[in-house]
């Protein structure tokens, strides 16, 4: 399957894992999984996407850092 860089995809051993991305927040149950919050509307909605493996997934929107709790759900 073709990999679209702007979408979440598996990249074993990536140096830009979702775990370190500011748009990622941990999965509610399994800390090896996560939630991507990069999809945000002007009205303030956040449409999350599930991340199966926060250590080995990435995308071109990766930005290292951490958002404040105020900017999450």
């Amino acid at each position, binding site marked *: 399957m073709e990999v679209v860089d702007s979408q979440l995809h598996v990249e074993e051993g990536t140096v830009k894992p979702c775990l370190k991305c500011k748009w990622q927040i941990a*999965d*509610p*149950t399994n*800390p090896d*999984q996560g939630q991507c919050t990069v999809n945000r509307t002007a*009205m303030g909605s956040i*449409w999350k996407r*599930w991340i199966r493996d926060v250590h080995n997934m990435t995308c071109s929107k990766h930005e290292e850092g951490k958002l404040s709790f*105020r900017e*999450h759900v």
Partner: protein
Amino acid sequence: MATMAPAVEYKGKVIDFPFENPEEEKIPDDELHEHLAKPSTERTKRLKARCRWKHASAGEFVEHGVRAGIERMRLVTEAHKASRGKPEVTRRALILERCLNKGTICLQTDEKIIGYHAEDPNYFPLYPELSYMNVKDYLMSDYSPQPEAEAEAINDYWKPYSLQAKCEQYFDPIDLTRMYQVSTMEAPTFAHGYNSIIPPYETVLEDGLLKRIKMAEEHIKEAKAELAKEPWDGSKQLSWIPKIDNWQAMVIADKAVIAWARRYARLCKIVAENFESDPDRKKELMEMAEISNRVPAEPCKGLKDAFQAKWYTFLVCHGIERYASGFAHKEDKVLYPYYKASVIDKTFQPMTHADVVEYVEMERLKISEHGAGKSRGYREIFPGSNDLFILTLGGTNRDGSDGCNDMTDAILEGARNIRTTEPSIVFRYSKKNRPQTLRKVFNCVRDGLGYPSIKNDDVGIEQMKYYSKFSMNNNGATDEEAHDWCNVLCMSPGLCGRRKSQKTRSEGGSAIFPAKILEITLNNGYDWAYSDMQLGPETGNAEDFKTYDDLLEAFRKQYSYVMSLVVRAKDVGRHIETQYLQIPFVSSIDDGCMELGEEATHLSEQPNGWHNPITTIVAANSLVAMKKLIYDEKKYTMKQLMDALKANWEGHEEMRKDFKNAPKWGNDDDYADTIIQSFYEDILGGEMAKVTNYSGGPVLPVGQAVALYMEVGSRTGPTPDGRYGGEAADDGGISPYFGTDTKGPTAVLKSVSKVQKNQKANLLNQRLAVPMMRSVHGFDIWHAYMDTWHDLNVDHVQFNCVSTDEMRAAQREPEKHRDLIVRIAGFSARFVDIPTYGQNTIIARNEQNFGPQDFEFMNLELGQ
């Protein structure tokens, strides 16, 4: 200047709404809440100023310095290793004993109620025996216990013994993945460790633990005699062995609790005699030492005894023996005998009513400081608060008389004065409640605390009687005992008292998400919007549903699959709890466990099964819109709708308007309400009631939302009610969707009252306009509304009473609005401690103003 409610013409008269307190005219709308806190003493003012809040939001702790402690993890591991070979229940008692004997104890300045459950009041304990994933999440967070390597080793040690690992083996890995991601269903208790309990405080306060020990020892003596009887009958006599183990574990646990309280007594005495220079504080400390030396070992004799014994019991039941959320008890009933002794009769620890109010404020601050090692999921879903600490007041006594007393009033006064988000309060509303107490309930409501949350007393009593019929040992609630109920957590009633109360959340709790289930129903069980995986059975695509009934039946199948899975997960958890997570201290203070030699997680006398549908109204409004626009009027095809949803309505704006403008819940609209009533009663309640849980009773819906309406909303794509992908879902269990209830507060009540069958509880959030509530007519309007609500047999209602101006001001300058409290759903939160996403959902709620049509329906007479 504050805004005054506009005059209303009613029954030929012009009704004005001047402020009840004219001074309030000078307070700007956008800072009202900052003027309402009035701690009753300098002590409680200081205690509030230095309170170690543990509010969490989006999984993060709001205050700096809050973190997980390692001490409990270390002690339970040492005890677990040292107790190899002993019966499991004995090991659990020895684990508790070690925590209490070796755990750090601390005494803080100014406090009169002492006790904490971690090595530092900024810390909270973790529970590696519950969920290894939860501990791992902490290890990967900024709040990791230190030293981290030791904590990691402890988690590795516990992994095979943990509740999570022991339960996981009984489930298909695909089902586990579906459960853990929390989109169609909440993850099971075994994966996050969240729990709830109603401790039988009454036995501790009335009997004292020395008496409980004596009772257990007598049972052991009798059991051993039975075991030795001749001629031997193995089919009967062997049953005494587990009972003996249980009673022996109870003795170990109770002795440990007494010794632990006496450690606190010694600490107070040492500080008083060696370090304290203030003679008044020295005297207080000596009195505290005397109290902790005596209780909970002996029965309480006065109100100071009762507050302290209750606090020790709370800590053990909720934080040390095992984690459990909640503060479930009927506090006014539990404490009133001691109020009477100390305030009215002055026979022991004499004090005034004002002194009692100060104690209430101090207890509220202890709760505010209490740390819970909750999972990330649970740190997300109570944003702006600590944990779900909820007590119950009011209602009726066993003989049907008014349950309100002077202790009820003191608790309400203290709550209003100190103004903390927790503990929340449930008030059982009865037509028999005395006016003076109702006025105090109203004062809290209009001050915007969001509590008391109001429950219908009669509905709760009938519910206890109903569940009693399913008691497996024919010892459920009697008609008299059915009056002894409190909310287990936010919404669901359960018996309280000396026995028959709920001891574990595997009985009732956890959630299911109809909006997300509808979304996958339209996509053959597939979740395209969040997880990109199959989440349920293949029940066909939306275009395959030729009739509305086809659609509904597909939903029913998806819903039923989830319901059976989640209750199976709870019951498997319960089964494992009975074998490895016994709670001998709780067993020792339950009269049923004591009499029968049973373990508290095992014994179920009164079933109380429930599960929480959350996001119901998004699903229900979506069904209404689809029925009207696709199946009835045929204005659109299902394919057109699915194309629009996949595009998040982009390029389909006119179509979205039609779906958005379709009839909505909460307007007394017959078309919408008929469909939605059937959805609640036949599908959500009807399918759930087919499930039987561990205790032999049905599982019934408790519609409520906590902040899962935000979380699941953000995991749900666009929906046919006109909602965009990622927008929050509905905020209650039966509340109208934000801003869609446009026909006034009594139209909401009329809609809600139509749902009666197959329900356990349903949360109704209403936002009241501040100026009218603070006017001279505020109480009369609210009182008439409550009587109308009661007469319509509605189960619940709770209120926000806060202006949009003030919330907007707090968004701009959060540091100036630390006392602004809002009701989320089932709990209250400090507004500035919740994410902007959540704040906007409170602002979006329709602010209800009462008009002439409402006054008329409520049969209200308004004088000038």
